[in-house]
């Protein structure tokens, strides 16, 4: 492998890894807040991609301009998912783990069906972004602009999330609720409201990822499923609930995937990621940065 080819694989892996991190961080945030794994996370991503597609077709604006709208829509969707479904799943007195899995899994199927009903099963592409199809030639290393843009958005989102968590009252309420759900009620924090906002925030983050992804990836009712598994692996690899862990794990996943694609047939590029996940949790059962 030449130095140039190596740089190409490294750079592509890094860019995709940052996007994986952005897809996964919402899942990790929600888990850290309330110990719930959202099995509809991939479908949130899928809906964000369709929302981008639908808005572009309706308004003829550039998808990048429409990003805030998609993020806002997903924020509402996340809040509604908590208030309409997850809130009730958390009240279950028996088999809580199973109830959460299947309540959110049922939601995932419902959303898939809804997308199929609204948009059909054709593969779609978002038309006409000025980023689409452009590549950056950095000394023989070719990088698609949509992915560079996605990686920058991801880094900005992580920075913003860090500020939000450390500097604002909402962030502190989130952290306090994560530490002790019972005690926060005593100091006047409405647990339900924090959870609903947390779900909104988690969904908004994956909405951002969907809006970025829609510019360069095909859209299909089942597209979420293929990213969801990578997101679960990323979150578990970084440690459930750890935001920084999601960032590091996302980058690792992107790099490992890029290098696996060099060694194995492209269809098997995920094998390296899965093997890495197993290797890490067999040695460190709580993931890289997780708390047991």
């Amino acid at each position, binding site marked *: 492998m030449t130095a140039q080819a190596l740089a190409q694989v490294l750079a592509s892996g890094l860019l995709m890894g940052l996007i994986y991190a952005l897809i996964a961080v919402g899942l990790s945030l929600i*888990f850290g807040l309330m110990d719930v*794994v959202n099995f509809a996370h991939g479908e949130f991503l899928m809906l964000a991609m369709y929302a981008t597609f639908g808005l572009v077709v309706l308004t003829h604006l550039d998808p990048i301009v429409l990003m805030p709208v998609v993020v806002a829509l997903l924020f509402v969707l996340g809040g509604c998912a908590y208030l309409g*479904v997850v809130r*009730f*799943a958390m009240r*279950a*007195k*028996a*088999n*809580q*783990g*199973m*109830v959460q*899995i*299947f*309540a959110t*899994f*049922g*939601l*995932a*199927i*419902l*959303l*898939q*069906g*809804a*997308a*199929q*009903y609204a948009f*059909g*099963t054709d593969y779609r592409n978002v038309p006409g972004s000025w980023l689409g199809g452009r590549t950056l030639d950095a000394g023989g290393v070719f990088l698609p602009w949509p992915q560079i843009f996605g990686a920058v958005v991801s880094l900005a989102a992580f920075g913003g999330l860090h500020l939000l968590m450390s500097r604002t009252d909402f962030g502190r309420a989130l952290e306090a609720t994560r530490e002790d759900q019972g005690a926060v009620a005593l100091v006047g924090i409405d647990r339900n409201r924090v959870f609903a906002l947390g779900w909104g925030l988690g969904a908004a983050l994956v909405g951002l990822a969907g809006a970025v992804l829609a510019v360069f990836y095909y859209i299909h*009712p089942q597209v979420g*499923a293929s990213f969801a*598994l990578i997101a*679960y*692996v990323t979150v*578990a690899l970084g440690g*459930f609930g750890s935001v920084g862990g999601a960032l590091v794990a996302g980058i690792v996943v992107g790099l490992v995937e890029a290098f696996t694609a060099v060694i194995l*047939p492209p*269809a*098997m590029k*995920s*094998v390296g990621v*899965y*093997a890495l*996940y*197993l290797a890490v*949790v*067999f040695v460190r*059962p*709580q*993931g890289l940065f997780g708390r047991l």
Partner: protein
Amino acid sequence: MTSTTLAAVPAASPEAGFAARRRRKLLVAAVVFAAIAALPYGITDVYLQNVLILTLMYAALSQSWNILGGYCGQISLGHALYFGIGAYATSVLFVNYGIVAWGGMLVGGVLSALVALALGWPCFRLAGHYFSIATIVIAEIGLLLVHNWDFVGGAMGIQWPFNPDSWWTLQFARDKVPYVHFALGLFAVVWFVTYLIEDSRWGYWWRAVKDDAQAAESLGVEVFRSKMAAAAVSAFFTAIGGGFYAAYVSYIDPESVMSFRFSLLFALPAVLGGIGTLWGALVGAAILIPLTEISRSYLGGTGSGIDLMLYGVLVMAIALARPEGILSLFRRTRSARNQEATP
């Protein structure tokens, strides 16, 4: 029955009542199985017979999942791997070597149990979601490997040759009734194994592991060995189900036997009916499978997604409305009745 701590081990004195209860369970099972065996003679519509076969098959598979997930509390979302091993072992042995499905299913079952033991050794150190995600990931690796393994047909899959109807090759081109009886037999066997385990030492150990593994360990339960045993039994029967499915549909490819949705489909009926119960898987399958099959053929033909929406709402509604499963409805009425009887 609901209390599953070690203290629930029956004392010597009520042994007679205990044995009578056990006999009554067997009697109920015999009646239920006889009634189901007679069903295909009343329902002669081929489409409905197909729904009945799938219902019984998923009931058997879900009961197999229930052994590990419901009784031992290890939530596997990767049982499609064992289903696939069974389907592929049976198909390869029959198509390439002429070994009939009976032998192939047995080989697949033993192979699956061995794989489950090999995978359980590292996986059972993981807790909660880390365990569940590891099972998904391992099954997905299996799917990718089979996809790229030409010896077992790769992405093309394996087509079974057509043979005259016979129980020996387990192939019936015209008649679906034998398949109904085989699927019923499979469920009956898994039911009976669960029945035997439920009140054995293993059964009490498994439920203790499910309730609180640390407490169980401190009381002398061999937690790790319990999980391994449950995984092996569960994988064995899941693979037999896979072998049956391959014989029934006569064509398999990686996606049609090993995709993630199968792993969920094995867990779902038991969860809906009531996990860790003898009849939950059958009750759950009897509601879920006909509903999905019928809504798929009447609403899904256009690809409009309405059938998916209906299915999703159903799964959510049952999970939220009855966390303990549908069977608990009946149990609650009985215990309420008992409460009324005692002043």
